[in-house]
C-alpha cells in the first residue's frame, strides 16, 4: 500500500506476464521487491532461468522494454493506481488462505473497506428484471445493516448489487477482470465513479493496460468469492460464469446463499439446481445475517418496520388487484382471470395503482407490487 508509483511499475511488470500467482509469490519471496526482481531478471540470474518458463520469460522481456515501462508508469499515475502485495500487512486477510491467492493486487480507492463484514454477490449479466430488483434490494438491506458487498462490476446483477450497496450506505468492492485504466463494460463508468466516491474500492490482479479477456473472468471470480465471508447467488443459468464463482466459494469452504427465483423461468435454472444440491435457501437479508450469526441489536429494530406495510385500497377493484398480486408478479391476462375484471376496468385500475406507487409494471406486460 505504501508503494510509490515509481515502484508500482515494477509490480505491473511482474503481473504483466500472466504468470501463476504462486510463482510470482515465490519470486517475491526470493527478491523481496519487484524492483529487485526486475534487476535480477535483466542480469539473467539463476532463479529466473530455472523457475520461469521461456514463455513467461519472453513476455517479461517484452514488458521490460523501456517504452512499456514508461507508458505503464503514466497509466499508474494518471489513474492513481496503488499496489498491495501478498506479504504486506494491509493485504486482505480473507484472501490470504485461498487457493492461488493473488500475489499482487492493483487498486483504486479505499482498501480498508475490505476488512469489515463482506459478502460476495454474483449473478447473470443478462439478468431478468426481477433478478436485478432482488439484487438491488438485497444489497441495499445488507448494506444498511453494515455488510459490504463485493461483486464484479459487470452489467446486470453485479451492477445492481453495487448500486444497492451504495444506496444502503456501506462501501462496496469491485473486482475487475482487466487493468484499472480500462472501464469494462463502458456503460458502468458512472457506477464506477460512484463506487470510488462512496469510499469503495476497485481492485484487480491485472496490470494497468491489460484488456479484458475471456479467461480472466472465471479466474477473477475466485477473488470475489474469496473477499466475501459467504457468497450470495442471485440469478444464474446452469452454464454460466456465476456458477464458477459458486464453485470457487465451495472450494474455499464458504457458504453459498441461493436466492429462490421464479421456478418457471430459465433465468434461475442454476439457482434451483444449487438449491436441490444443498445451497442455502434465503428470502431476505435477515435470513443471511441470522445464518451467519451476524444478527445484533440494530438488526432486530429494523425487522418489524418492513413487514407491516399494509396496503390501502380505495375501491374493490384495487383490492382485487392487490390481492392477486401479493404472491408475486403476474401477467395482464392472468390478472384478468384472477380479478374477473374486464380489460378496460383492469387497465384503469392498474393506472391508478401505478400512479399511487403501489404497483409497478415490468417489461413483458408483467405487474407486481412495489415494496
Amino acid at each position: 500500500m505504501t508503494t510509490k508509483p515509481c515502484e508500482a511499475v515494477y509490480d505491473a511488470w511482474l503481473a504483466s506476464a500472466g504468470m501463476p500467482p504462486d510463482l510470482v509469490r515465490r519470486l517475491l519471496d526470493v527478491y523481496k521487491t519487484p524492483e529487485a526482481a526486475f534487476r535480477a531478471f535483466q542480469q539473467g540470474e539463476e532463479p529466473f532461468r530455472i523457475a520461469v518458463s521461456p514463455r513467461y520469460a519472453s513476455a517479461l522481456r517484452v514488458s521490460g522494454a523501456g517504452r512499456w515501462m514508461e507508458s505503464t508508469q503514466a497509466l499508474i499515475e494518471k489513474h492513481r493506481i496503488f499496489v498491495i502485495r501478498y506479504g504486506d500487512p494491509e493485504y486482505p486477510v480473507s484472501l490470504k488462505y485461498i487457493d492461488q491467492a493473488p500475489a499482487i493486487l492493483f487498486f483504486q480507492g479505499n482498501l480498508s473497506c475490505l476488512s469489515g463484514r463482506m459478502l460476495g454477490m454474483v449473478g447473470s449479466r443478462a439478468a431478468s428484471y426481477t433478478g436485478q430488483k432482488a439484487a438491488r434490494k438485497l444489497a441495499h438491506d445488507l448494506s444498511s445493516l453494515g455488510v459490504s458487498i463485493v461483486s464484479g462490476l459487470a452489467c446486470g446483477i453485479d451492477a445492481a448489487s453495487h448500486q444497492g450497496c451504495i444506496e444502503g450506505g456501506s462501501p462496496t468492492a469491485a473486482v475487475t477482470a482487466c487493468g484499472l485504466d480500462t472501464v469494462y463494460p463502458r456503460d458502468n463508468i458512472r457506477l464506477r465513479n460512484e463506487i470510488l466516491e462512496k469510499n469503495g474500492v476497485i481492485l484487480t490482479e491485472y496490470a494497468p493496460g491489460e484488456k479484458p479477456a475471456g479467461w480472466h473472468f472465471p479466474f477473477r471470480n475466485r477473488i470475489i468469492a474469496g473477499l466475501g465471508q459467504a457468497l450470495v447467488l442471485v440469478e444464474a443459468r446452469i452454464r454460466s460464469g456465476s456458477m464458477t464463482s459458486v464453485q470457487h466459494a465451495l472450494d474455499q469452504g464458504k457458504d453459498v446463499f441461493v436466492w429462490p427465483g421464479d421456478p418457471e423461468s430459465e433465468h434461475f435454472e442454476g439457482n434451483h439446481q444449487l438449491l436441490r444440491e444443498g445451497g442455502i435457501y434465503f428470502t431476505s437479508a435477515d435470513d443471511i445475517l441470522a445464518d451467519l450469526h451476524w444478527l445484533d441489536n440494530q438488526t432486530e429494530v429494523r425487522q418489524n418496520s418492513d413487514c407491516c406495510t399494509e396496503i390501502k385500497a380505495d375501491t374493490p377493484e384495487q383490492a382485487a388487484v392487490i390481492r392477486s398480486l401479493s404472491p408475486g408478479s403476474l401477467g395482464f391476462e392472468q390478472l384478468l382471470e384472477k380479478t374477473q375484471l374486464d380489460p378496460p376496468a383492469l387497465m384503469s385500475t392498474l393506472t391508478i395503482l401505478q400512479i399511487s406507487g403501489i404497483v409497478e409494471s415490468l417489461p413483458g406486460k408483467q405487474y407486481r407490487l412495489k415494496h
Partner: protein
Amino acid sequence: MAEILAKVLTFGVAGVNGFPVHVEVFATGGLPMMEIIGLPDTSVRESKNRVTAAIANSGRGGSTARITVNLAPADIKKEGPSFDLPIALGVMIATDMLHPAPGVDSDQIAFFGELSLDGSIQPVNGALPMVISAKENGIRTVILPDRNAREVSCIQGMHILPVSNLSEVICWLEKQTGITEQEQTAFDTLLNDAVTGTDMCQIRGQKGARRAIEVAAAGGHNMLMIGVPGSGKTMLARCIPGILPPMSFEESLETTRIHSISGKLPPGSGLMVTRPFCAPHHNASVASLIGGGQDARPGEVSLAHNGVLFLDELPEFSRSALEALRQPLEDGMVSVARVKKQARYQSSFMLVAAMNPCPCGFYGSNRRACRCTPPEIRKYLDRISGPLLDRIDLQIEVDSVPLQEISSSEPSENSASVAARVSKARSIQLERYRGTGKHCNAQLDNADVKRYCTPDEEAVRLLNTALDSLHLSMRAYQRILKVSRTIADLEGSDRILSAHIAEAVQYRELDQKYWR
C-alpha cells in the same frame, strides 16, 4: 386510294386519374406500313403488330394502306396496351373495312381494351379511373373488356358494354348484333361480399390486446405492438381490417382506383369492398413503400389507402424507409416525383407495426432468458426514431398466451360484434367532425385536441398526476387525450372521464419501459 381520317375516343391514365385520348387514324396510299405517334411507350408502339394480326383474324381481310395513328393530345405520355382496341377500330374505319351504322356516334362512345393476336380482348389496368373520367367528360357509353366490367359496374348512369373479342365490337358498330349491357350493381349489395380476413374469435386469450385493437380501430389510431416471438402479433393485426367500419362508396372508389392502375385487382373483380391489408416484407425499399419507379407508381402506403399497413419486425426496416413514412402518416397523401413523371397518391392508412423487444426476442419474457446485452437492446430499439414513434398513438405489449389457454374451448368474441361497437364509435366521430374534413380521432392535431378532448376536472387531475409519477412526456399527454376521446366514444360517453384517461395511460406504457 382516298385519304381518310378516322377518329375514335379512348382514355388513358396518369397517376390515379383518367384523361381523354383521341385516336386519329390517317390512311393514305403508299407502301403498307403503320406508325403510331403521340408519345407512345413501348407497349403502345408494339400495339401495331397486335392490331394488324387481330384485324386479319377478324375476318375482314388485312389493310394495305400507309397508316399513321396519332394519340391526341400529343404531349402526354401514353402507356399500356389499353389503346389496342381503339387503334384497331380506327384503322378499320380509315381503311374502309368497317362502316359504323348511321346513328352510332363514335365520338360519344369510349373504347378500350388490349387485343390478342387472334382478336380476343384482354383486361387492362386502370379501367376504373378511365370510366370515371369518361363519365366526367360526359360520355355515357363505354366498351371495355368483359373482365373489367365488374370493376366499373358501380358507377351510376353509365352504359357499360363488356366485349370479349374484336368481331363483337365490329358487329355492334354495324348494328348487326347487340351487346348485353353490364348490369349496374348497387354498392350496398357489394358490401355483403366483403371478406373480413382473420376473425377475432380465432384469437384465444389476449383480452388486453383485443381491447387495444378495438380502441385503435375505433379511432383510426396507429398502433405498435411489442412482444416475444409467437405471441400472436401478426394474427392480431390481421383481424383489424375485419373490425374497421365498412368502406363507404367514395373510399372504395379511391382504393380501387389505386389498385386498378397498379394492376393489383384480380381479374374479374368488382370494386374493392374489403379494406386492404398490406404487409410488405421488411426488406422493402423506399420506392416500393412510398411509390416510385420510372413511371412513379403507387407504393404500399397507397395500396393500403383506407386500410391497414402492417409492418412486421419494424426495426428491421431500413431507416430511410421508416423515415419516408412520416409524410404519408402526417398528410394522408404522398407525392412521388421522378424525372419523367410526378404523381400524388392518397395514402391515408392505419399503421400497425409489430416488433420484438430485443434482437433475440425474449427480453422481459419470464419463460425464456434473453441473450442480448443492454447496449444491443438499446441499439435495436433506437432504430425506431422519435418522430415516427410520435405518430403512433397506441403502443402495447403483447404477452404470449399460455398453452392451456390456447387449447381451451371457450370461444372468444367474433369480429362482427366488435365491428358493431367500432362502427358506432366511428359514427359519433363522423357526426362531431362534420364539415371539418376530418373523420376520426386519429386525425386531430394539437389545436383540435384542445377543442374536442377536454376531460372533466377529476380526469385532468388524474392525468396530471400520471404525467408526474410515470414521467410521461408532453407528447404522450396529447396522445393520451386523443386515445381517451376514442375510449369515451366507444362507451358512447360525451365527456372524457377519469376511467377513460386511466385506460389510455396504459397504452403509453412502452415509453417508460423501453424508450426511456
